[in-house]
């Protein structure tokens, strides 16, 4: 039979998304190494995207088998939770031949994720379910049951249809599973920052908005590629406001600790929770703006509601 993580609950969806709770290194390896080896033995493609220290531990435990596994440091590849679905999970799963189950270990939540990043992490975990519905894919998500606070472990029960409790093997259904409610709960308002470069824009001032963001980004210490990224993100977000957010909005740029932040507020409402998280088809016209922002920013936070949408993104300085 299969390991816990491969066991199907009372569902007909071939997509499996268990949370694995671990208390120490041994439980981590007990929960992940057989999952990888079983996949390899069945000829299934396997990827591991976990923080660097765990990645080294798992690579050492796998020995020569590690060479057959796609290994990624989630701290880099998944720094912005909004890019994990398009840039890590689907980038791997979609590149595999059809017919075989794809196995991925993904650890997007680790002790040390900031309180600003965390809401985006929960929304990401919840949206994986919609993004992979119907796919023959297993995504196993380890959670550090010792170092992560209780509310994080509770949220993992809401975002994963099945859970593997610490020290046990079989996966069981999560009674608290409610991914849509988790997305809504972490759709947190982003309070107005008053001490920021502020630029109201409309269709005829899109280039001015971009220049204003660039000038302020440069003044706040951005250079090179990151300054170009700020300009590109500003262009994409402000253009989206003109096209879909009521014809215009307000751009703000400011610095916080090690980042320059760029925020666009408009009167639109985002109704597609997976916007910016689907890889674009090669021949798809348009619709890549928010995806590009997710791919280049360190963090993207969104708040959307009846009174409008705010998108805030972080660039390192």
């Amino acid at each position, binding site marked *: 039979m299969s390991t816990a993580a491969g066991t199907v609950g009372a569902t007909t969806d071939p997509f499996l998304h268990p949370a694995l709770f671990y208390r120490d290194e041994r439980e981590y390896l007990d929960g992940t190494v057989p999952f990888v080896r079983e996949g390899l033995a069945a000829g299934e493609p396997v990827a591991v995207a976990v923080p660097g220290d765990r990645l080294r531990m798992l690579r050492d435990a796998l020995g020569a088998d590690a060479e057959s596994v796609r290994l990624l440091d989630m701290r880099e590849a998944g720094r912005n939770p909004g890019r994990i679905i398009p840039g890590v999970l689907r980038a791997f799963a979609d590149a595999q031949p059809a017919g075989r189950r794809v196995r991925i270990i993904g650890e997007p939540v680790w002790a040390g994720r900031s309180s600003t990043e965390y809401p985006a992490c929960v929304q990401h975990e919840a949206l994986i379910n919609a993004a992979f519905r119907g796919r023959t894919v297993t995504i196993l998500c380890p959670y550090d049951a010792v170092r992560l606070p209780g509310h994080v472990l509770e949220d993992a029960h809401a975002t994963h249809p099945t859970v593997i409790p610490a020290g046990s093997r079989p996966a069981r259904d999560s009674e608290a599973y409610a991914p849509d409610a988790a997305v809504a709960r972490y759709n947190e308002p982003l309070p107005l920052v008053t001490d920021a470069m502020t630029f109201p824009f409309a269709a*005829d001032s*899109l280039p001015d908005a971009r220049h204003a963001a660039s000038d302020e980004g440069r003044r706040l210490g951005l250079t090179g*590629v990151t300054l170009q990224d700020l300009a590109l993100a500003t262009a994409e977000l402000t253009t989206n406001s003109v096209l879909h957010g009521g014809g215009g909005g307000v751009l703000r740029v400011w610095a916080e600790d090690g980042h320059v932040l760029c925020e666009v507020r408009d009167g639109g409402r985002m109704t597609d929770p997976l916007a910016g998280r689907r890889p674009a088809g090669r021949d798809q016209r348009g619709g890549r703006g928010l995806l590009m922002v997710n791919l280049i920013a360190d963090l993207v936070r969104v708040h959307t509601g009846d009174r409008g949408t705010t998108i805030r993104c972080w660039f390192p300085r």
Partner: protein
Amino acid sequence: MPYLTVRPLEGCRGVRAAGEIGLATHMIWERALEQAVREGEAVYYLELSEVTFVDVAGAGALAAAAGRLGDGRRLVVRRPPPTLRRVLETFWPDLSTIEVSVS
């Protein structure tokens, strides 16, 4: 107001664009790209050294035009703003009918 001008190149098949490629100028850019596809030349040059910015949709229009070229044809994009190359590499890394030239 944002602008984009497109003039024929001297000495080879292609155009020199100047200005920026964004929401207000996509139509002009797409018309230039349609022309490039229609010309039927094996190599068609897009001189972009005077273009200050290309957004993701502008890069997408370029990729779509390159995808419509027949066998043995290509677009050579000269000295584009740096984000264009970045966006092309992100979304169309295997598009062999676009050649980006920095010189």
